[in-house]
């Protein structure tokens, strides 16, 4: 089993996702950016695009328009004003 790391997706209205995942792809300013476990500390701005999360059991997808991602200490945090797709439904995940 692949190594996992923590992901939190926080929107203005709620915490849309909070859990352990295997990989993450986000739309950074200069192109899509993949994050795996033990990624180096990172702070990046996001642009309009698709966020893909692989939890190991299933793949979740959602769209963002703006936002930021921070990775540190094997924890990724996505800050965005709103996210659609699978995350809008999985509010309690």
């Amino acid at each position, binding site marked *: 089993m692949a190594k996992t790391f923590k992901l*939190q997706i*926080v*929107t*203005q*209205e*709620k*915490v849309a996702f909070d859990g352990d995942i295997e990989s993450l792809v986000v739309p*950074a*300013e*200069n192109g899509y*950016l993949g994050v795996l476990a033990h990624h*180096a*500390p*990172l*702070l*990046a*701005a996001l642009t309009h695009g698709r966020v893909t999360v692989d939890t190991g059991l299933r793949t979740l997808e959602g769209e963002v328009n*703006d936002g*930021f991602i*921070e990775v*540190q*200490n094997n924890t990724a*945090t996505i*800050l965005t*004003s*709103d996210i659609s797709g699978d995350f809008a439904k999985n509010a309690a995940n």
Partner: protein
Amino acid sequence: MAENLKALRRRIRSIGNTMKITRAMEMVSAAKLRRTQSILHAGQPYAEKLQELLQRLAGAAGDSDPLFARREAGRIAIVVFTGDRGLCGGFNNNLLQMAERWIKERGKDNVDVVCMGKKARDYLGKRGYKILNAHIDLGGLPEAPLARETANELRDCFLAEDYNRVFLLYNCFISQAQYEPVVEQFLPLSPDEISEEGDGDEQKKGLHAEVEYIYEPDQKQLFARLLPAYLESMMYITLAQSMTAEHSARMMAMNNATKNCGELIDSLTLKMNKARQAAITTEILEVVGGADALKG
């Protein structure tokens, strides 16, 4: 006498109906209060994280961003947060009176108002204050798009130097039974506000400082992108605060109204019973008097 009795009975019934309405409104407000409170609570992580990121970048980027620019004098904008409806005690009135005082202190002609809620628009519009924009029919629940739009509009005005200072005036929700009108500065941002932090975070910050981050784009640009998001979040939280306070104010006002109705019914019932008894006594006296007259 009979007339009086009937009138009393009618009054008691009508007050009873009013009581049903106020009790229903109290329950509706209680439900809405719970919802807005949970929204307010759910919005905290975003605001906190954003502040944390800003703190980390503040050192590198400094306060060179135009959103920090201090310009003395000049025009002022104030956003006044009220509700769309009344029946909530002093919630709207206290705030609007404070708004009026505040604006007069700074000169009526120097201040433009952005109204959130019908009450603010009606009250301030009627008194001839210059209204820049009014958002009404807020629906009782805080909406992020509205907050974003307002924050961006004010930011643009500030950057265009239409206004040199922007303030927010709203009812701050303290507890279910307490709220307080407060004025907060929205723009320009103050560097202290962003780097301000609780004692608990000291250790955390020390940890962060040692980590070398990869920034994309560079720190300055990131900082400039984070600031508008911070303003939006501030506006959103303020809106949520004001609405939560509104529902709690209405709940309290309706609770009091229901209590007063109960007291009124009690005192009227007592009056009614006394009147009824008096009527019966008079009748008996009349009968006895009549019987005596026949005997004699």
